[in-house]
């Protein structure tokens, strides 16, 4: 008897709760519900829209320069870029300096690790308040698997210094993304465990002191995530010889260990960071934009 009740109840429970599947109507197959952009008819496209479209077709990266609430959360304050800066920035920095060489020289790394969205920010991130004068973080859009972004687009300039500094920072921010995606690793975090300077301490350290303490830059001594990102950044910024020189001068075993780990991690993803430096150096300094 009990058994029958159980069976009866089970059947009842399984069938009784079924509800209609689409309370708001059928799903429209033509709408891309996951696109962050509000669809803009081609008749309204400007030069940058065409360029973004070409870049998306060639590299699979959706470049976003117009802000709507789908793109910028209400609690984060970014200023949209000036159009006359966003256009040359996309042409030169994103197309010619970042994506094209990456796809040609490091196809495996490009295919596996390139974000599918890239957001241009006119200024830098302003935490908590849109009018705050402090400009923290170059990008601040790096903590998501699929999306990278860079601040400072309104400063766009074709000066070599600016271009070089920006692409190196872009790889720094991308390293944060890699970090979020795969993790720095258990061992990496323990190399300098207990030796980090923290927020208050890093700014008073010189670079030489930081390197003796096992960090590429004083900022890398701030916290493990910046330690990792500044490692990538340093290897992209300086030639292999300089890196080896720093390792020798600092005589820091911690730094040497972290160097090997980060270098190897990127090798496994398909890019030798020393070669990436050569490529970046060449596309910035050997070509005039």
């Amino acid at each position, binding site marked *: 008897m009990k058994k029958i009740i159980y069976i009866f109840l089970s059947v009842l429970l399984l069938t*009784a709760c079924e509800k209609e599947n689409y309370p708001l109507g059928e799903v429209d197959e033509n709408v891309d519900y996951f696109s962050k952009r*509000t669809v803009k008819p081609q008749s309204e496209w*400007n030069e940058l829209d065409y360029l973004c479209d070409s870049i998306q077709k060639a590299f699979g990266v959706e470049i976003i320069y117009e802000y709507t609430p789908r793109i910028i959360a209400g609690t984060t304050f970014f*200023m*949209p*870029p000036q159009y006359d800066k966003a256009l040359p920035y996309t042409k030169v920095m994103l197309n010619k300096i970042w994506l094209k060489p990456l796809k040609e020289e490091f196809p495996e790394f490009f295919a596996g690790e390139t974000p599918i969205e890239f957001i241009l920010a*006119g200024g830098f991130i*302003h935490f908590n308040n849109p009018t705050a004068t402090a*400009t923290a973080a170059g990008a601040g859009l790096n903590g998501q698997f699929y999306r990278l972004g860079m601040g400072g687009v309104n400063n766009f300039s074709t000066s070599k210094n600016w271009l070089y500094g920006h692409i190196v920072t872009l790889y720094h921010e991308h390293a944060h993304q890699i970090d979020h995606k795969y993790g720095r690793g258990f061992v990496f975090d323990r190399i300098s465990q207990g030796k980090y300077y923290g927020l208050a301490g890093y700014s008073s350290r010189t670079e030489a002191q930081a390197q003796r303490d096992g960090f590429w830059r004083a900022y890398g001594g701030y916290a493990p995530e910046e330690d990792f990102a500044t490692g990538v950044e340093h290897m992209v910024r300086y030639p292999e010889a300089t890196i080896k020189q720093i390792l020798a001068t600092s005589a820091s075993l911690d730094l040497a260990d972290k160097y090997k780990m980060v270098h190897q991690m990127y090798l496994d993803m398909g890019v030798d960071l020393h070669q990436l430096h050569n490529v970046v150096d060449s596309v910035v300094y050997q070509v005039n934009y």
Partner: protein
Amino acid sequence: MRKILYHLFFFVGSIVLLASCEKDNITNAYFEDNTERQEKVAKEAKEMLASAENGWVMMVKTGLNSDVYTPIVLKFDTVTNRLYVKTVYGETADTESYFRITTGTGAPQLIFTTGSIMSSLYRVGAQASDITDHIYNIVGVSSDTVAIQCYRSGNVYAKEGGVIYKMFKRPVDWKWADGENYFDFNASGFGTNVLGTASRVQLEYVNSPEKNRTIASGFSAVAAANLSTMRNGFAFQISRNIGTGGFAPTNYVFFRFPYLTTNYDGAPIFANNALSFLPQPAGYTNNVTYMTYFINTFNFHYLVCKSVVRTGNNVKMEFEAYDKAGKVIVKATYDNLL
């Protein structure tokens, strides 16, 4: 007894389980019956924005003055999504800026999607305007107004929804906002009988005539050598504040006014047929000290030029400033003959 209790418990439990499956009474009838509602409002808004030939006016309150509001004239090209902004703080840069009308989050929104004077005002903050976002909810559309409200109201913990602006169609007699610059010290011949000429300015306060007064005044030229220092102080330029932009390099003219027991040559910006006394954070004689004194004493932070009339050596210029509704609240008449 235990067995009975057990059965009872089991029985009650089953009923609760079954009852919990009952569907609730929330329906989506409203949305089902009004599927096009948001699109309809957005479409109406778009048609309205396009309909004003001379554009729309937003009157924004500043942190400087509670009576005189700053006019912002917006023109919307709904075919290309191009936005054209004119205000009194400086000449608009010759760069493209864009807007969108979207229904992306449910409610129709007017969004200034790229960097422009509108995002610069948002970035710079309370002194220049009470704008707190570059994203606006469209809260009402009628035959002669479009009401928009800032999506956010300030910092991260501030409530949702900022100031509501009732935009009205630009009055036809606001010639200053048309393309032609007739009040322009850079134009050849404009300074004749004006620059370096001791003059008087008669101030008329529409709502409080007891404040009316005439001051010893006069314009004089700013040397080109001083220009870069003064421009460096402009709050809306990218090199001072990277999130800004949208203004062309600024131009200044000395404007004499009574200051404490003497006279002083402050340096307002002249642009778009207007003088802007907005204090600059740093720079020159237009810095916070002098301009704040000026604004507190005379109760306006800009003057738009209505007309310039030359009769022989005599030059008369009429200026005005507006209140919340765009009505004239301050009149100033310049006369170069003492």
